[in-house]
């Protein structure tokens, strides 16, 4: 089992794009008991990875309840860093 933050980045690498809600949904099977697998925490992880060039925004939209969802995808640089550092 990988640390949660690693799993978040690995998941992003395996899909074309994902929002924080998508990440939580995808990881809740294995990491559901983790207190850190919450919307705020995952959103901040993704925004921090974006700030450091690992991810970039794909698009954003609103759901039926007018909640904002930003979708991220891995950059080429991010993919090389993730492959190099996270097994």
């Amino acid at each position, binding site marked *: 089992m990988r640390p949660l933050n*690693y799993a978040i980045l690995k998941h992003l690498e395996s899909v074309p794009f994902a929002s924080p809600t998508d990440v939580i949904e995808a990881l809740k099977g294995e990491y559901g008991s983790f207190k850190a697998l919450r919307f705020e925490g995952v959103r*901040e992880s993704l925004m*921090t990875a974006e700030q450091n060039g690992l991810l970039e925004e794909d698009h*954003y939209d*609103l759901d039926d309840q007018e909640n*904002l969802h930003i979708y991220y995808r891995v950059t080429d640089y991010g993919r090389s860093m993730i492959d190099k*550092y*996270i*097994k």
Partner: protein
Amino acid sequence: MATNLAKQKYDLQKASFFRKGVAIALSSGICFGTYSAFLTLGMERGVWADWYGPASALSAFVVTYVLSAVGSAVNDTLSGIWFLILSAARGKLADVGRTFRTKPGLVMIICALIGGPLASTAYVVGLQTAGSLAATVAALNSAIGAILGRLLFKQTLNLRMVVGIIVCFGSAIILGGTTFDGEFGGSTLLGLFMGFLAALGWGIEGCVAGFGTSVIDSQVGVTIRQCTSGLANLIILVPLLCLVAGNIGLAPELLGQAFTTDAIIFFVIAALPAGLSYMLWYRGTAMCGAALGMTCNGAYAFWVPLFCWILLGLICGEPGWALTPVQWAAAFMMFFGIFLIAMNPLDLLKKKEA
């Protein structure tokens, strides 16, 4: 309409993330000030008062070099214990163990060794040989971190940010109360070199560990940092310095007394904000980039004397801790420098005109 609302919410979230990053990076300096004040208080009480007192049985070398390392060893070890407990409470203890065995975990360990035992010792040796000039040179760590962030991670570093860093560096010089008597001997050069090594160590730590926090959870990262630094100080640095002092048996004796003195309570208190300051430093730097994150943290040059004045001067009634008007002015100058790195002042004028 829906598109407009989405854009508004999007802009709001972006601005909120940026503000949070700046607040976190500034808080790291405040925690550093709090920890320094309690550590200074602890190192004046109990067995430390005997060690540093006029009737001290310890040699000048031990008092000058070994005791600082003992203080760091006790502080970082206790801080590591605090963060192991906090990680357990927040369900992250297993992630600490898992991260230890990975490449980013190894990078964090190397950063801890560079910024912990190596840079801290260089800083103390610098202070002892070149006085506050070494502290001034060590304040270059923000600038070094920003340059490394540009070179290693392609982060933004434009002319406005460079000017802001220079303003912050200038105010750190004033806050450090730099005085120079004009005698520039070999020991001063050694001290300046040591101060630069400290700046380099902290610059590397802030920049690399800050970037590492985009991969590793910041609390997990700082738990690794403090445990590594504490153990390296305890097991390697203090015995090594005692060996240089000619008595390796002194290491367990000094450490044993440092952990059992009444003053340990101040170290226990100091160790929590110490770990928090590193955690917020890494997290803030990851959220804002090395240039802004490290200069926000660098405001500790103001927070340290401020909190020492509050705790030691106002609460404990010790004389000599009051801040001078020049130091207050330098603090304002430093915050202007941080503001300059964070944003273009002309943007504010443009918004008003709009």
